[in-house]
């Protein structure tokens, strides 16, 4: 695996008021990696939604949990790893609701799947969950249109 050109690791407590710090980190790394403004928005939202899900569904809004984000930028992709120390999450919980059912909630996983190309949980990670999200870029430097959101185990 080639070495990442840019790398950042940040750990916050599981407080929604700190989510903007993660968004800033994603924007900073995406900008450093030369990602377009629209792709940067997509990446920022995907990571924000994933982190929000951890706060709401893994930690149940309990603010003393630990939430780590690692960002790696390669010439052809950006990789994001979110770590928590909460109860195991089932990949089944990533099933987004149908868009025809217009109601509040349930859109977070849908957006993540739209924006990211790979979504997987590290099954060997024992002390919580390690979620890996990857976005591939075309040789021209722009991200593929809509992520396939393929789940890999």
């Amino acid at each position: 695996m080639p070495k990442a050109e840019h790398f950042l690791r940040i750990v916050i407590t599981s407080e929604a008021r700190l989510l903007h710090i993660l968004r800033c980190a994603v924007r900073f790394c995406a900008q450093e990696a030369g990602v377009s403004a629209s792709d940067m928005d997509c990446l920022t939202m995907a990571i924000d939604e994933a982190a929000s899900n951890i706060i709401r569904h893994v930690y149940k809004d309990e603010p003393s949990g630990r939430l780590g984000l690692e960002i790696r930028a390669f010439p052809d992709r950006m990789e994001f790893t979110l770590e928590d120390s909460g109860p195991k999450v089932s990949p089944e919980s990533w099933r987004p609701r149908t868009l025809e059912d217009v109601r509040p909630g349930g859109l977070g996983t849908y957006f993540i799947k739209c924006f990211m190309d790979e979504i997987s949980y590290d099954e060997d990670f024992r002390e919580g969950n390690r979620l890996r999200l990857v976005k591939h870029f075309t040789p021209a430097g722009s991200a593929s249109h809509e992520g396939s959101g393929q789940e890999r185990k």
Partner: protein
Amino acid sequence: MKVLVRNENSTTIIECTGEVDLYTSPKLREALLKEMGGIKTNVLINMGGVSYIDSSGIATLVEGLQLSQRTQTRFGLYGLRPNARSVLELARLTKVFSIFEDEQEALAKISTTMPFSGLS
């Protein structure tokens, strides 16, 4: 995020500024519930100052729409920035909400828009 409420021609305008996320969306929700829970009034959200909106923010807007459906009032958005509009398009919500370019258009048309009736 800042939320300011004012009244214009018997329509309640909620000015929203900043980033709407899991932390700040309850503030917008609180304003919506307060304004829509009392007297019957049409509500417009000025999204011009919203630099970021996540799924919890969108859920709050959908809740506002649901409330308007229940109270037989109108609910609309205006001044959407491209990123917020893209997110609504992706969620296929641009045809669900009444969306106007600016306040002038919103105030002129909000009363005559058809109430949306497809919410579950």
